[in-house]
C-alpha cells in the first residue's frame, strides 16, 4: 500500500509534456516555464529602466547586482568584450530565473490530470533538453561566427584543418568532434543537473509523504534539497554563461596568435575602449 502511494506521488517525464496545441504548434509545460521566466525578466528590466536613478534604490541595486557582476567578469576577458557581454548576461539571467522558478510552490505540482498522471502547467525550462540544446546551439553559432569574423572563412577552415596540411585527414575529424563536444557538453550538463534536481526533490517528497509515520519529515527534508537546488541553479547559470564567454574568448584569442593584450595602457587613464570591433554586434 505504501509502495503504491509512493509510486503515484513520483511523476517523472524526460521531456516537456504537451498542454495544448495551436494548429501544428505544440505548447509544452517547459515552454510555459521559459515564457514565465522571460516575462519576469522583462518586467524586472522594465522596472529598472523606468525608475532608475544614479544613486540606486535597494531594489534597483539588487536587480543590477548580478548584471554588474557578470559584466565585470566578461570585461576582463578580451578587448572585444562589448560584442558579446549582452549575450553572456542574457544567458546567465535567463537560466538563473528559469532554474529558480522551478523551485516555487505549484511549479510541477499543479496541473491537468490525464488518467493516472498529472501533467503540470509549468515545468522548469532547463529540465527539458530542447531548451538547453537551443541555448547551446546559440552559443555554438556565436563562437563559430566570432571565429569566422576574426579569422575569415578561409582562416577558420584552416584552424579546423590544422597544420601541417598532410595531417588534415586526421586533424579535421578530431577538431570537428572537439567542437561538437562543446555543444553536447553545454546542453547535457545544464539539462542533467536541473532534471536530476527535479527528480531528487520529487523522490524526497514521495519518500517523506509515503506513510503517516514519516509525514512530519515532509516539512523539512525537502527543504534541505530545495536549498541545495537554489545553489545548484545559480552555479549552473554562471557555469553556462562563463563557458559561453570562454568559448568566444578562445575563438578570438586563436586569431591573435595567443598574444591577447595583457594590459591596455589606455585603461590607466580611464579612456573608453576604442577598438573598432568592440562595438556591440
Amino acid at each position, binding site marked *: 500500500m505504501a509502495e503504491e502511494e509512493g509510486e503515484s506521488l513520483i511523476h517523472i517525464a524526460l521531456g516537456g509534456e504537451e498542454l495544448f496545441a495551436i494548429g501544428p504548434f505544440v505548447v509544452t509545460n517547459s515552454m510555459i516555464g521559459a515564457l514565465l521566466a522571460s516575462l519576469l525578466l522583462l518586467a524586472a528590466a522594465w522596472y529598472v529602466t523606468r525608475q532608475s536613478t544614479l544613486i540606486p534604490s535597494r531594489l534597483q541595486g539588487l536587480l543590477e547586482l548580478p548584471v554588474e557582476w557578470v559584466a*565585470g567578469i566578461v570585461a576582463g576577458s578580451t578587448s572585444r568584450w562589448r560584442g558579446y557581454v549582452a549575450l553572456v548576461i542574457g544567458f546567465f539571467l535567463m537560466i538563473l530565473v528559469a532554474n529558480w522558478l522551478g523551485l516555487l510552490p505549484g511549479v510541477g505540482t499543479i496541473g491537468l490530470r490525464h488518467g493516472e498522471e498529472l501533467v503540470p502547467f509549468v515545468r522548469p525550462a532547463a529540465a527539458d533538453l530542447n531548451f538547453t540544446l537551443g541555448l547551446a546551439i546559440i552559443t555554438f553559432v556565436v563562437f563559430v561566427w566570432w571565429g569566422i569574423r576574426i579569422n575569415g572563412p578561409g582562416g577558420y577552415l584552416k584552424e579546423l584543418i590544422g597544420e601541417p596540411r598532410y595531417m588534415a585527414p586526421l586533424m579535421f575529424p578530431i577538431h570537428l568532434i572537439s567542437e561538437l*563536444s562543446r555543444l553536447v557538453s553545454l546542453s547535457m550538463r545544464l539539462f542533467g543537473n536541473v532534471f536530476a534536481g527535479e527528480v531528487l526533490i520529487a523522490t524526497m517528497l514521495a519518500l517523506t509523504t509515503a506513510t503517516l509515520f514519516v509525514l512530519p519529515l515532509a516539512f523539512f527534508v525537502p527543504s534541505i534539497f530545495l536549498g541545495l537546488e537554489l545553489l545548484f541553479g545559480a552555479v549552473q547559470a554562471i557555469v553556462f554563461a562563463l563557458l559561453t564567454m570562454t568559448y568566444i574568448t578562445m575563438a578570438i584569442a586563436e586569431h591573435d596568435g595567443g598574444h591577447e593584450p595583457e594590459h591596455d595602457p589606455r585603461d590607466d587613464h580611464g579612456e573608453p575602449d576604442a577598438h573598432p570591433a568592440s562595438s556591440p554586434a
Partner: protein
Amino acid sequence: MGPDGDGKREARRNASGEPRPANWGIAFDLGIRLGISVILGLGAGLLLDSWLRTSPLFTLIGMALGIGAAMYTIWDVARDAMRR
C-alpha cells in the same frame, strides 16, 4: 560601478594570482567533454558501420578519433589557460 571599472578590478585580481571565475567553468567543462568526445567518435563510427555494413572498421576508427579528440581537448584548454 560600471563594467569598465569592474573589469579592471577583475584583471588586477587575475594579476595577483587568484583564480579567475571563468576557470570554474573550464573545470566543470573539461571532464564532461572528455567523455563526450569519445562517445561522439564511437557513435559516428557505429552509425557509419551500420550504414555501410563495414563493422567494426569505422567503430574502431571513430573510437580512436574520439580518444584523439579528448586528448586534443585537454591540450586546447591547457594552451588557452597558458595564454591567459
